[in-house]
């Protein structure tokens, strides 16, 4: 990455012309900036509608107007994030790609949370009977059974209670990470760190039992 001497802004010569124009207008003032913000919002709304459309099967109870409200809210929040973080754009992608990711994130998180709004999230690892009693299929073998038994034991004995709750909710009960983060008052990043640590412990537990993952 090439940065300007003034700070972390990308050197203008590294930007494509369209990205350079976006930055110039959004960092400007007056009517030209206002017009650029309107165009930015329209760009973000297009991405948010695209994402809500892709995930609409998760929200069969919502009418098209309600889905569009969700996209509008996502675009509004994304616009705030993009404008607040304008100096974080490092010119390593096109500006529009960088901006779109904020809209897609806002829209996908809103869809997941709305889909789970009235659903209970079970945090206790007592709902994993499906995993505890798998039906052997054609690829079943003794090592696979041993791996499963070791994983079950590892979940019970190698993890902290918090790691166990997070792992079971995310990996076994299919709770979306943004939904669990909201219910637990934490962030996606922090929860994924917990999940990562739990997975690492489970792998170590398998290795201690002489088990590979070549099942």
């Amino acid at each position, binding site marked *: 990455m090439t940065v300007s001497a003034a700070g972390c802004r990308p050197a203008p010569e590294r930007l494509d012309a369209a990205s350079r124009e976006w930055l110039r207008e959004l960092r400007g003032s007056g009517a030209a900036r206002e017009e650029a913000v309107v165009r930015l919002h329209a760009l973000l709304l297009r991405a948010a509608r695209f994402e809500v459309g892709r995930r609409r099967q998760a929200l069969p109870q919502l009418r098209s107007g309600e889905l569009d409200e969700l996209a509008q809210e996502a675009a509004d929040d994304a616009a705030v994030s993009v404008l607040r973080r304008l100096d974080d754009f490092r010119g390593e*992608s096109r500006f529009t*790609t960088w901006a779109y990711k904020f809209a897609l994130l806002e829209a996908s998180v809103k869809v997941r949370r709305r889909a789970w709004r009235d659903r209970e999230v079970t945090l206790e690892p007592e709902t994993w009977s499906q995993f505890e009693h798998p039906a052997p299929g*054609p690829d079943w073998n003794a090592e696979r059974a041993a791996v499963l038994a070791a994983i079950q034991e590892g979940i019970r004995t190698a993890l902290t209670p918090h790691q166990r709750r997070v792992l079971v909710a995310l990996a076994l009960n299919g709770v979306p*990470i943004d939904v669990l983060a909201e219910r637990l008052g934490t962030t996606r990043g922090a929860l*994924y760190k917990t999940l990562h640590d739990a997975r690492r412990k*489970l792998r170590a537990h398998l290795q201690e039992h002489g088990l590979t993952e070549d099942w």
Partner: protein
Amino acid sequence: MSDPDLDLTLLRLLGPTEPEIGCDECFEQLDRYVDAELAGAAAHALMPGLRAHLAGCPACAEEHESLRALLELGAHG
């Protein structure tokens, strides 16, 4: 639970085997990764750990797929 279901469950439980980055880093790098992918570059070589993270994090994987799909529609402009 059938074998394919079991394979998926085991992947979700144990995660990717390669070193991976976290969700926040993934978000920071995602635009560069997708632009590189669509340009035909070896995105995973430029940003080691991101591909592994996408294999381990369904939420980030969905957002990666969406960004890629949106850009493939020719959404720049």
